[in-house]
């Protein structure tokens, strides 16, 4: 570990001190003088026609300031969707309006119908109970296949059907793939469900709208992963507030995992209502509300076919998926089952022909959007499960089958539009075999058997496309946003540095890791560098944090800005030392003139920039502050190999995870401690998906898993200690730090590992089980064992 706290040091996190002492500043910790509170009356039915909303009695209730319904939002835009998918016939997706408050119909349980603004939250809640709703219940559609049937009830009466889009990728490959599968010596088929999940960051969402009438300025405090994006979406598309009159602040945010990317109705409502009632308006989600209003994740039903030759070489993949959009299109929902999913279907392998079909379906359920991994876990799960099944059918060791098909030469252009810049999949697998002691498995299985347990081994690989994303490329694919990142490096007169980054930290430790990079570049103490984020009034337009992009994109922007700063400082140093700029070197916080003992300290140069008495004013402006916008030229491609061992109790079907080994290639690493923590968290969520979590609606569209009593969040005693390794490093070739991103890997790679291991355990015990749908609850595993 470097002693200086620069790149590669496991520097302890500076933000921890405030979190550990109760001094964090989360949005709910903010109270504005004279604030009112809002309570949303939400639909308790999945589908209905609103015939009337009578607020007369409620308006007379104590403390009520005003009650809002959709009538108050005439002329206000809907919540916009940020990604337009074009279907395989060249037509745009069906894109229904997503109103701030329900207009005419309710389309999922939890949809806000009316909003009561009152002096206290309790008064608002009490008054909401006095609102009389006249809603005619309509038949809901919950199941995706049923939603696509002829004559099915429509979620949106004004659309032609419940099909949002029918997407083919790569459409030109369709017939060639069909033919390859028809003619293949062996085809392995697997039908599976990637169940719906709820992201469940521990901090529920909060929004506070503030309006300053004197200056006509709006401020929104919100629990967002990307405050600038919220400002743009809400300002330009919903409320018509120009950016210079709208400030969005996301202070400490208690976890995001994707579901805090999106622009939500409650944010628009609080901003709108603050002006309407001329009071600050605060909303705090309860956990129950979060379950029915935070965008949910996954929910794919898939059939995948893998064609192989006699030696196990992959010939073609065809996959057909139904992807649940829920009742409305959340901000990035259409991108998840398409571009974030279809492009990953090559995995780590040389499969020459791939065709992906995705039918996105509207149902009377909460909207679905990106959740940690977003499309990539769905791709990885089906691919790594079907490979495992194929290995068993062909009698080839699953690791050997993967190795026979590994991509080994880079850059590698896949048949699904990506170009992997670098990787070494044999190296990560070698490392995994060593660390997980796979040779010792049989002995451990025998020991388990003595205790009456069925032991299984699961192994798989994964690849992901991170560092999202090249703007011109995603623009062609339907994104309605650029996906660059920004940074301003402000050097203060005494040499300390304030970095304004467009990245947002909600647990990732940017305040610690980003200074390590700057400190390394200049040779100063990281404590001299401060990171500012999460406030549109403080930094340049930024795109925020998701898709494992902060260091790869936001860090790169910071490096570019710091390079500009250093180049200017070098000019100043050259002037101060009366030397040629070409001879100036920066090392350990000092500029030196090459080949001489002349030097000047970083702090003296920065002081000269702000006190420019001896300064080349004819050639150089005073000051030392630079901004850079970095637009990546490609995605980054973290990849790895995972192994786990499970024990299944044959009496009950209960699965215990005995060990979990993750070997990841993240390229260069800035803070290994933080990287390991990110993998741990991803593994926790991935194992949670595999064994515990399930978001369930009944046939009436009622959400059955709407609290922590019903939705099985992983607890400490559900999970093991993990073994994580990131010593295999093939640095990214196209960003200045050579980093790839580590935030989602664990959640992407681990679900198939667990399922592979449980299937292995059951097969070793003689059960003819080839697949069990997640979550692998004791009931499901036990049922599978009974045949």
């Amino acid at each position, binding site marked *: 570990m470097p002693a200086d706290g620069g790149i590669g040091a496991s520097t302890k996190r500076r933000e921890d001190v405030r979190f550990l002492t109760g001094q964090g500043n989360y949005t709910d910790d903010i109270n504005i003088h004279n604030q009112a509170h809002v309570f949303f009356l939400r639909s308790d039915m999945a589908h209905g026609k609103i015939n009337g909303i009578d607020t007369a009695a409620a308006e007379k209730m104590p403390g009520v300031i005003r009650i809002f319904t959709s009538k108050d939002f005439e002329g206000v835009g809907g919540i916009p969707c940020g990604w337009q998918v074009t279907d395989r016939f060249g037509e745009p997706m069906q894109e229904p309006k997503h109103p701030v408050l329900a207009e005419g119909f309710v389309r999922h349980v939890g949809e806000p119908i009316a909003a009561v603004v009152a002096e206290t939250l309790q008064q608002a809640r009490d008054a909401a109970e006095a609102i009389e709703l006249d809603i005619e219940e309509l038949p809901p559609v919950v199941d995706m296949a049923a939603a696509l049937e002829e004559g099915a009830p429509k979620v949106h009466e004004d659309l032609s059907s419940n099909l949002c889009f029918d997407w083919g990728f790569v459409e030109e490959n369709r017939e060639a793939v069909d033919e390859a599968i028809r003619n293949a010596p062996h085809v392995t088929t697997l039908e599976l469900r990637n169940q719906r999940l709820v992201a469940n960051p521990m901090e529920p969402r909060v929004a506070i709208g503030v309006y300053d009438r004197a200056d006509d300025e709006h401020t929104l405090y919100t629990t967002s992963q990307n405050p600038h994006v919220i400002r743009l979406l809400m300002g330009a598309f919903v409320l018509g507030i120009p950016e210079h009159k709208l400030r969005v602040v996301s202070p400490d945010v*208690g976890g995001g995992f994707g579901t805090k990317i999106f622009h939500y109705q409650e944010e628009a409502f609080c901003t709108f209502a603050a002006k309407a009632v001329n009071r600050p308006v605060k909303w705090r989600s309860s956990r129950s509300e979060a379950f029915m209003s935070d965008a949910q994740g996954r929910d794919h039903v898939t059939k995948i076919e893998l064609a192989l030759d006699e030696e196990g070489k992959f010939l073609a993949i065809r996959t057909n998926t139904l992807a649940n959009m829920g009742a409305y299109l959340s901000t990035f929902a259409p991108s998840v089952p398409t571009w974030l999913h279809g492009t990953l279907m090559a995995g780590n392998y040389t499969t020459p022909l791939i065709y992906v079909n995705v039918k996105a379906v509207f149902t009377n359920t909460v909207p679905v959007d990106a959740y940690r991994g977003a499309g990539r876990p769905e791709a990885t799960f089906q691919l790594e499960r079907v490979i495992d099944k194929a290995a068993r059918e062909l009698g080839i060791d699953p690791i050997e089958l993967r190795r026979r098909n590994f991509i080994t030469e880079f850059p590698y252009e896949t048949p699904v539009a990506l170009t992997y810049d670098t990787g070494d999949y044999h190296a990560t697998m070698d490392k995994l075999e060593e660390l997980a002691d796979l040779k010792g498995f049989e002995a451990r299985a025998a020991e388990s058997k003595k205790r009456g347990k069925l032991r299984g081994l699961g192994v798989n690989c994964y690849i992901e496309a991170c560092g999202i994303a090249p703007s011109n490329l995603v623009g062609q694919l339907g994104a309605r946003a650029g996906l660059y990142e920004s940074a301003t490096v402000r050097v203060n007169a005494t040499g300390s540095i304030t970095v304004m980054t467009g990245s947002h930290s909600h647990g990732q430790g940017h305040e610690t890791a980003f200074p390590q990079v700057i400190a390394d570049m200049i040779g100063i103490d990281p404590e001299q560098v401060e990171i500012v984020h999460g406030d549109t009034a403080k930094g340049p337009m930024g795109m925020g944090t998701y898709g494992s992009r902060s260091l790869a994109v936001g860090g790169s922007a910071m490096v570019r800005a710091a390079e500009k700063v250093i180049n200017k400082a070098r000019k100043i140093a050259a002037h101060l030392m009366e030397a040629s700029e070409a001879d100036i070197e920066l090392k350990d916080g000092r500029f030196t003139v090459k080949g001489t003992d002349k030097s000047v300290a970083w702090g003296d140069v920065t002081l000269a920039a702000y006190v420019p008495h001896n300064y080349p004013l004819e050639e150089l402006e005073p000051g030392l502050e630079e901004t850079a916008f970095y637009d990546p030229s490609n995605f980054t491609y973290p990849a790895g190999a995972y192994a786990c061992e499970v024990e299944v109790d044959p009496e009950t079907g209960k699965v215990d995870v005995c060990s979990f080994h993750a070997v990841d290639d993240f390229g260069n690493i800035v803070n290994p401690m933080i990287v390991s923590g990110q993998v*741990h968290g991803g593994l926790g969520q991935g194992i949670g998906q595999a064994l515990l979590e399930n978001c369930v609606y009944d046939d009436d569209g009622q959400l059955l898993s709407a609290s922590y009593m019903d939705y099985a969040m992983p607890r400490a005693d559900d999970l093991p200690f993990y073994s994580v390794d990131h010593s295999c490093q093939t640095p990214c070739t196209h960003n200045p730090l050579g980093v790839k991103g580590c935030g989602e890997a664990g959640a992407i790679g681990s679900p198939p590992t667990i399922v592979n291991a449980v299937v292995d355990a059951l097969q070793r015990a003689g059960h003819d089980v080839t697949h069990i749908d997640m979550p692998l609850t004791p009931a499901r595993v036990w049922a599978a064992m009974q045949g």
Partner: protein
Amino acid sequence: MAEVSMTVNGTPVSGNVPDNTLLVDFLRETLELTGTHVGCDTSQCGACVVHVNGRAVKACTMFAVEAEGAEVATIEGEAAPDGTLSAIQQAFQDHHGLQCGFCTPGMVMSAKALLAENPKPTEAEIREYLEGNICRCTGYHNIVKAIMAASGQDVSKIAAE
């Protein structure tokens, strides 16, 4: 409305609040001690754990008036007056036992209660004790490790970093 008085982190406090005010809301809203968090509404998540008369309690499960006259300890009282972190807090920082920090106050207060009754808990005992504290960020690895370290156990063999 009810007049309620208690001692919080050694300081006598009082307030006049609606009868049905939860202890957690009294702490957060009336006393502005916002370190104690609300992460659910079913007393599952544990983000609001405080100590009442020395026992770990979810502050969303009792009314403020039920704490009348009680000694309440919250996360704000854990570090020394000069800001020095307690052994448990320090172990959480040393072992990266927190990410977003939202569950952390409850985790620290639960860990403190655990170590008070079981000074050298095993890994399994820690995991079982934390049943009522949910963390979504860490996968619990470094939380368990931090609590073992805070109890003076050697954690150097538990995975790298």
